[in-house]
């Protein structure tokens, strides 16, 4: 198992190298002179020249790349052009809302999706099953940001139950934090609960067709016990992978959700930076988000091996 873990971690090196290369190239994909684009339409020639040398854009591209890489590996992603602080610090300040939002969103997705998926599998081919699965297809088609707008309209503007936008940090208390994040987390998670439901259903159907389920049934065990004691435990294992799969969508969805609900998270930092052409922050935010995604997937893969003793990896 240790050897598998080591292999899995080592396999990340090429992926991360490519992630960093793509991220580095984002600045160089800018048509024309990147420094002039970054400096904006009102910049003087000397502004542009200063920016160019500040960002090393005057060096040959391979030198730029090696310098950028070397510094990035030490956690130094440069300075924001507007915020007066390092990119890493800016990201760090915006990490809490995004991490909490995605975590709550994940909980919503699993709490709603799993029971629906299990129920659909157990009542396979009934009206309930078809209804749930149609709902699930509908669910994946609803854009999270639109659902967020509808929630704001219904629960904040009309009913005035919850705040329409804004954020309270965990340090202001869990209740205050939750008050601001309930609607965003629901908007973010509901959409993904559809995917969780579909996957749980197909895992459950697979488990229900296994021999040990047939054995349990044929020895006269009540169907409810077959489900609870034999099927459920086995369906939980593959469901772990769902978490890794939907996490990517949750991180992506968090960007739009933060914009809709005016939450000062990493996603909003990314969008604000795009709008004011703060390229060091764009590069940094994209790199950190990709890194978070890669690490989550690694953890999920390892968890899978740990919780399922039947799987042996070379």
């Amino acid at each position: 198992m240790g050897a598998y873990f080591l292999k899995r971690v080592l396999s990340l090196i090429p992926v991360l190298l490519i992630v960093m290369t793509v991220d580095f190239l984002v600045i160089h994909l800018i048509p024309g002179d990147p420094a002039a684009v970054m400096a904006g339409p009102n910049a003087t020639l000397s502004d542009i020249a200063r920016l160019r040398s500040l960002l090393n854009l005057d060096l040959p591209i391979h030198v730029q790349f090696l310098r950028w890489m070397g510094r990035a590996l030490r956690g130094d992603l440069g300075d924001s052009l507007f915020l007066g602080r390092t990119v890493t610090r800016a990201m760090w300040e915006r990490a809490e809302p995004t991490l909490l939002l995605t975590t709550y969103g994940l909980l919503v997705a699993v709490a709603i999706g799993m029971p629906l998926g299990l129920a659909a599998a157990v009542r396979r081919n009934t009206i309930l099953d078809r209804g749930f699965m149609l709902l699930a297809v509908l669910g994946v088609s609803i854009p999270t940001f639109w659902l967020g707008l509808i929630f704001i309209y219904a629960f904040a503007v009309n009913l005035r139950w919850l705040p329409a936008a804004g954020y309270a940090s965990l340090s202001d208390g869990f209740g205050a934090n939750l008050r601001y994040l309930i609607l965003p987390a629901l908007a973010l998670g509901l959409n993904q609960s559809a995917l969780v439901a579909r996957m749980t259903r197909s895992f459950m159907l697979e488990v229900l067709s296994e021999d040990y389920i047939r054995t349990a049934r044929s020895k006269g065990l009540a169907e409810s016990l077959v489900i609870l004691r034999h099927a459920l435990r086995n369906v939980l294992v593959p469901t772990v992978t769902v978490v890794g799969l939907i996490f990517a969508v949750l991180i992506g969805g968090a960007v739009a959700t933060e914009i809709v609900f005016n939450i000062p998270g990493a996603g909003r930092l990314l969008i604000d930076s795009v709008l004011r052409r703060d390229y060091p922050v764009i590069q940094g935010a994209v790199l950190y988000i990709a890194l978070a995604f890669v690490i989550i997937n690694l953890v999920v893969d390892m968890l899978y091996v740990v919780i399922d003793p039947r799987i042996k990896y070379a």
Partner: protein
Amino acid sequence: MKPARERDIPAKPGVPSPRGRGGPSLSRRLAGQAGPVAGLLVIILMVLCALFAPILTPYDPLKLSILERLSPPSRLHPLGTDDFGRDVFSLVLYGGRASLLVGGLVMVFTSIVGVVFGVISGFYKTLDNPLMRIMDGLMAFPAIVLAIALMAALGPRLSNVIIALSIVYAPRTARLIRSTVVVIRELQYVEAAQALGAMGGRILWGHVLPNTLAPLIVQGTFIFAYAVLAEAALSFLGVGAPPYIPTWGNILSTGRLYIQDAPWIIWFPGLAIILAGLGLNLLGDGLRDLLDPRLRGTSGTS
């Protein structure tokens, strides 16, 4: 999953037959399914609405009319007007043009790029590893985040949205095609064809490409759906199509500012996005069950 459908699968599931034929025709098998047929009809209807937008609405979607600013739904403006007095119904119809154009072109481009890279990777072992590592690297970004980064570099234009989303989604198709090609390459009839002296090109056109068609169509339908959703998200965030082009995302992005006073602006662009996503997903699910039983259980989202 659904035993009734399993009878449709030709002899051996998982092994593509040499020409991918046998059994009733695709259109006939498709006609027996309510979901995919409904999905197809929805998509056709939406495409028609987008094409015939000038006939369906008397208004120019770009015509400003300050006097009619933010007026609620009425007989003149069935879905109301936005902050510039533009007719929302017309905006939604014309918005469909941009959204469906982006979705359709991204589907075409990812299919072309995906097949080229997938086939090269599946056939040439020396190129397989580096190509697939690059695909892994691109897939290590959450899709919308990579799209935002690319749009930041390329600049807010509709053509750039198509380029960015094609780069984001092509690796998925490339991986899928590669895995299909690797299986086909080892099949006995391909070996037999090689033994008979068929050359690379002949094997490629005669045996490999026809068998990649089924997964390609299924994947393409899903990519169409992702691209429509992603385009809406990018426009909504202000990093997609420029604000003066009516797209569903752009309408929502204005509507957001007037949610209190003019909630009618946000309803229909959202419903249009959902309808397009629903139609494409239903069609994709149906096609997958019919064409490619091996993909069953995988889902239309990512």
